[in-house]
């Protein structure tokens, strides 16, 4: 960090401690050492000294002890020619500043007339409120705990114009933040600016004028300290807990408005102790990430129209919007709702009009949170019963956001928009389809509200990864046709990424016990590389089904410790299968046909079994009614394998699984296949040719026998010997 900013903060701390010493000396002289000091109606003595160092100050004499602590903390002002690591010093100076502030503010409460109005709201002739009493703390502090108010903005100084002051205050209020105002600069403060504009202030409107003195800033941090003591369970003097609680739970920051002098630098240093960063509108030195605050510590200069969103971002504040701001009811109850043609005002995209939905990751400074644009006609510009195109384009940014999350968030567009009463949403990507009812339109629902819904719900559900969201709604064909190609290219890239997903890269598989009504002991384990044996279910379907019905037949199963990577055996999967197979199956290998193979319900698309003399396997599908080289028809084979019993040498599986790298990989994979029924072989031709190519056996497809050349095991053996099938030279199966 810069020496300059450290120097200014430390110098400010020195000035304030000196001022505290002088004022304390005078107060003791005038009123006597035993004069009581307190912030009226508070149970925490003087909160900073009580919370941070655990001392209970009740008299002017007691303040002397705090002064000594402040002096002890004061680091030397950095020398011109010597550079040392300044962070520790700056933090100490910040804490000394807060102690000095508290001394000076406490003395004010011994003065007549009292310079503060100890009420929740200011009066016409007294703007400044000073420390909050315990009633206010209990009422308001709980909002910090339950999240109704995420935190506060400690605003010091003043804005270039009253208009800007009002705008910043409003913007902070919209984010449910408290606005704590203190520290006039050159006799001007933000609170006075709001007063001049006739803005109602006080705890009720969350616009709290603490005091015009720079030291009144301590009431913000005092309030934060008391929240930690009273709601966070921190013990007085347990400064680590007090500070950590604030860093983790109270989303506060300092807005330094206008010129920042040494004393204000010192206040910012005090706030950094709590994990509260400072954002300035003027050009001061920055302190970038160093470990105390979540991200940066001091950021400047930031333009007024961006300062609130910048502060929120730097503090890592997650915006939650309790109520989705749309004129129709919103909730999961409306999800299954179909807007009938007769009730419909407008249909968007669907079968007759182009459209798509796309969500993409952007840089933080490329996204303006909450910005919603409608490009093309709005709902009141389209006639009843019309069909128009629709594209929903969402830009998100977040420090924890990754491109891999894009499709997950994008899929939520469906769920979220469907929750609006009178709005019907189907599909995703470039097959989206939306209807809005006449009633919803009548209530004032507009296309822009798609944006409001997505903004509110994405913040609500994905606040951990998303910090900023902006939405563009296109309702004109021209723009949509221009953009749709970009979107389609990305969809394809995502699909390719997904197709390449391996069992190793996920921690969780999904179970499927949907068929237990037929085979009570059967459990399917669905992995990215092994779909359910009925062919209907892949890993993503399992995941989606679990999200839709968390207690349903698809449960996530952690792999746990690897027992055998080759055969595909994991500790927790074994335990799960054991429990869900009603304790009938103790060991389960995902990739073996010989040892503890997966059971089958009876629903499998295909069946594979060992043909012992060929050292290979045969694969037949359900529709094949003829004889197979195993000596059994499909129906007889199915009887052997189904019902949830492990039958070594036999497995049921999906067609798709044949092409998987994990297809009986424990026994060497698909190149073990020596016979397939012809129709299946032809259907799977591209897949089998691909396997051959990967295995370096170009003619593999032609080496596999079918019923036209072999119907007995002997004939298969003869055929594959002629073709030099790779199975013959592989290690013995048994």
């Amino acid at each position, binding site marked *: 960090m810069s020496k300059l900013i450290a120097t200014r903060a430390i110098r400010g701390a020195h000035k304030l401690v000196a001022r505290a010493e002088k004022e304390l000396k005078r107060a003791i002289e005038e009123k006597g050492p035993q004069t009581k000091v307190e912030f009226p109606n508070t149970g925490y003595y003087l909160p900073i000294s009580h919370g941070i160092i655990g001392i209970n100050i009740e008299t002017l004499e007691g303040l002397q002890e705090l002064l000594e602590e402040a002096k002890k903390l004061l680091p030397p002002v950095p020398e011109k020619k010597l550079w040392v690591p300044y962070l520790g010093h700056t933090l100490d100076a910040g804490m000394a500043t807060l102690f000095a502030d508290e001394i000076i503010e406490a003395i004010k409460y011994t003065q007549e007339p009292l310079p503060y109005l100890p009420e929740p709201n200011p009066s016409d002739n007294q703007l400044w409120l000073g420390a909050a009493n315990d009633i206010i703390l209990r009422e308001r502090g709980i909002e910090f705990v339950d999240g109704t108010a995420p935190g506060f903005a400690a605003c010091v100084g003043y804005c270039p114009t009253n208009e800007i002051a009002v705008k910043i205050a409003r913007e902070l209020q919209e984010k449910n933040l408290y606005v704590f105002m203190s520290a006039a600069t050159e006799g001007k403060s933000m609170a006075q600016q709001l007063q001049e504009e006739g803005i109602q202030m006080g705890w009720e409107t969350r616009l709290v004028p603490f005091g015009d003195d720079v030291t009144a800033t301590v009431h913000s941090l005092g309030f934060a300290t008391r929240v930690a003591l009273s709601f966070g369970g921190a013990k007085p003097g347990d400064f680590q807990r007090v500070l950590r609680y604030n860093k983790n739970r109270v989303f506060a920051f300092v807005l330094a408005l206008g010129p920042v002098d040494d004393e204000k630098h010192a206040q910012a240093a005090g706030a950094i102790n709590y994990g509260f960063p400072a954002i300035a509108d003027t050009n001061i030195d920055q302190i970038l990430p160093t470990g105390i605050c979540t991200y940066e510590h001091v950021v400047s200069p930031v333009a007024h129209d961006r300062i609130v969103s910048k502060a929120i971002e730097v503090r890592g504040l997650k915006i939650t919007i309790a109520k989705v701001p749309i004129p129709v009811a919103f909730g999961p109850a409306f999800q299954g709702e179909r807007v009938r*043609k007769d009730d419909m005002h407008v249909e968007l995209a669907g079968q007759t009009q182009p459209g798509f939905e796309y969500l993409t990751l952007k840089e933080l400074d490329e996204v303006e949170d909450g910005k919603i644009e409608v490009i093309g006609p709005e709902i009141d510009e389209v006639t009843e019963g019309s069909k128009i195109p629709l594209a929903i384009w969402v830009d998100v940014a977040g420090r924890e956001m990754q491109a891999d999350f894009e499709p997950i968030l994008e899929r939520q567009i469906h769920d979220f928009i469907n929750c609006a009463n009178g709005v019907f949403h189907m599909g995703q990507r470039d097959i989206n389809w939306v209807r809005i009812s006449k009633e919803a339109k009548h209530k004032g629902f507009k296309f822009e509200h798609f944006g409001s819904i997505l903004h509110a719900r994405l913040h609500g559900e994905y606040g951990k990864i998303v910090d900023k969201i902006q939405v563009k709604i296109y309702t004109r064909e021209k723009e949509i046709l221009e953009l749709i190609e970009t979107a389609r290219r990305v969809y394809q890239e995502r699909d390719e990424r997904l197709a390449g997903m391996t069992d190793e890269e996920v921690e969780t598989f999904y179970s499927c016990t*949907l068929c237990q009504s037929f085979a009570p002991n059967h459990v399917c384990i669905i992995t990215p590389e092994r779909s*359910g044996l009925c062919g*209907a279910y892949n890993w993503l379907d399992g995941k989606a089904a679990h999200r839709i019905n968390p207690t349903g037949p698809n449960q996530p199963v952690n792999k746990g410790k690897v027992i055998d990577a080759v055969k595909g055996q994991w500790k927790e999967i074994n335990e799960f299968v054991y429990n869900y197979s009603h304790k009938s199956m103790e060991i389960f290998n995902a990739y073996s046909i010989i040892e503890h193979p997966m059971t089958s319900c*009876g629903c499998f698309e295909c069946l594979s079994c060992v043909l012992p003399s060929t050292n290979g396997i045969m694969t037949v599908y359900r529709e094949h009614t003829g004889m197979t080289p195993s000596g059994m028809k499909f129906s007889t084979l199915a009887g052997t394998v189904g019902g949830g019993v492990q039958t070594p040498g036999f497995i049921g599986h999906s067609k798709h699984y044949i092409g998987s790298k994990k297809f009986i990989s424990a026994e060497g994979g698909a190149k073990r296949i020596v016979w397939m029924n012809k129709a299946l072989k032809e259907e799977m031709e591209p897949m089998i040719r691909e396997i051959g190519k990967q295995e370096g056996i170009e003619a593999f497809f032609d080496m596999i026998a079918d019923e036209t050349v072999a119907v007995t095991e002997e004939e298969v053996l003869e055929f594959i010997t002629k073709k030099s099938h790779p199975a013959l030279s592989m290690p013995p199966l048994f």
Partner: protein
Amino acid sequence: MKTIAISGKGGTGKTTITALIIRWFSDHGKNSVLAVDADSNVNLNDVLGVELKDTIGAIREEMKSLAGELPGGMTKQQFLEYKIQSSLVETPKFDLIAMGRPEGPGCYCYANNLLREILSAINTNYHHVVIDNEAGMEHLSRRTAQKIDCLLIISDPSTRGIRAAGKISRLLSELDTRVQERYLILNRVRKTVPQSVKKAIEDEKLKLLCSIPEDDRLLGLDQKGKPVWDILADSPVYQSVDRMMKLMNFKR
């Protein structure tokens, strides 16, 4: 939402009565009606005079054949929902969905489970759901999870017909389908119901709601290639359906 299911042996006039019930709702200003053609022979659309876009059976087969490759990275749930929702035939008077052919070989647990969920979600959007069923109660037991308010078993006025109706009724009890009211409707009645038929009804413990007469105007429509829907309101068969609806407490 109220659900009426119409069942009965093939050729008893189920589909005609289904169409007339839907027409009755429409004539009484009740247009939030979903007609479900659950007969694999799919012809409700013809008597209603509308074109069918797709059937659930065809959609299910399409999903099965797509295996791992659904368009647009959709989940199967979403794909099915989308396809089913877009397969609905929409008219100002009613909407129509057709079940189509039952499944072929292979496992349908998953697909049917999804279908059940999706269909019952769609049903709740309508004030009235009218289901034209197959003779066997398969759709009742397997596809519709929701309760049925009125089940109408249609029979011609013959003892054999009544016995078949009794079988359907008993089957239904075994299937554990939640049915509130269960009635027998005699269709194509010429003048009076024979005594032997009356006795058979008693034997089978069926509750006769009303009779619907043979009506030549239906035949006339058929010959002109017009749908049943177009029947005049003063024709005897329509008058009987009107009485039947009132007996079931459907009000104007």
